């Protein structure tokens, strides 16, 4: 009888723990966008970036960033605590390779009270960039950047406490130039 009771209590505890984990996971999951409807665009794109890194992999990867190298230390700090990094980016040779429906399938997931649009820049010629945040209290728990261009479609989805300042400062490090065209290089006359 005692053994049966012990087993029941153990089972109940495990179930409760699993339910709790599922609830937490579900909360984190809601910050995750479903972007697999866009996978078919890879066949049309001249260039595709498709990155899916979950929390476990982030933690494993963080160990490979040096704490002494200042650039890598910043990256390590940035990814500390993140629950997932998901990027889909398609570049096309011609305009019109993706449809408004494709973009709407992403936007519709962001039209919920959980997401707040903090930035929206529209340009008929250059497309638009939208930035959404999900917050838990005063902390950011999710970020989405949706960049829509006539020849490019990019969705960035980062789960967890993102430091926007640190993230925006990354551009220019590791040899990646700014997006602006660099000023012409004046070459010395050859002898």
């Amino acid at each position: 009888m005692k053994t049966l009771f012990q087993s029941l209590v153990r089972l109940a505890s495990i179930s409760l723990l699993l339910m709790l984990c599922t609830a937490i996971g579900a909360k984190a999951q809601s910050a995750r966008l479903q972007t697999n409807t866009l996978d078919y665009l890879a066949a049309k794109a001249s260039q595709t970036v498709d990155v899916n890194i979950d929390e476990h992999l982030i933690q494993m990867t963080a160990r490979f960033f040096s704490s002494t190298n200042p650039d890598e230390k910043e990256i390590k700090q940035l990814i500390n605590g993140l629950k997932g990094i998901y990027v889909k980016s398609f570049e096309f040779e011609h305009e019109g390779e993706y449809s408004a429906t494709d973009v709407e399938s992403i936007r519709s997931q962001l039209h919920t009270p959980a997401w707040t649009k903090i930035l929206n820049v529209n340009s008929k010629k250059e497309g638009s960039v939208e930035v959404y945040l999900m917050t838990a209290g005063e902390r950011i728990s999710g970020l989405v950047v949706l960049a829509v261009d006539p020849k490019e479609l990019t969705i960035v989805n980062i789960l967890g406490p993102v430091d926007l300042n640190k993230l925006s400062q990354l551009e220019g490090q590791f040899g990646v130039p700014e997006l602006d065209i660099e000023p012409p290089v004046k070459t010395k006359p050859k002898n």
Partner: protein
Amino acid sequence: MYEVEATADMLLMTSQGNPVMAREAAQISPEALLVKAVLAGNRDSFGRLYELYAPMVHGILLARVPRTEVEDLVQDIFLHAFKKLPTLREAGAFGGWLAMITRNRAMDFHRYTRETVEIKEDHATGDRRKRARAEEILEVIRSLPDAYRETLVLRLVEGMTGPEIALRTGLTAASVRVNLHRGMKLLRGKLGIKEAEA
């Protein structure tokens, strides 16, 4: 000075963006077999590794150090790699390991060597003019960020394709593709602007 231990396995992505299965632990690449043979005492196998990877090492160096120093450094790097081969944990990661040694060696070259100014000869003949033009373009490539210039040199100078660059250097195909695409964009811009000034 440039001791490196690497365990990275390689990930390839096709041009359609579909991930390809990484090599499982049970499969051993030809390069890994050669490394194991060298460690077992077969020096000839290292010669074969040299043949396979010398263009990559040459290209990485060409992107970073004066052209006149490259050939000596290639030999130096392979000699060092031969001596330090037992420190390589994963035989299949030889390419990435060797690439990192090469980059580190190039950095050390600049740290410990006073650079001299190359005197340009008067290139009269057609071949020499072509070579002179090549050196001008190489200088422009060298002014690009690290990630782009190395990939461009391997592609345009050494004639390696994108998948080959990924295979040899241990970079992912996605990274190589992005570097090639964006690097080429920058290069075109700089060459275009340079031509306008000339």
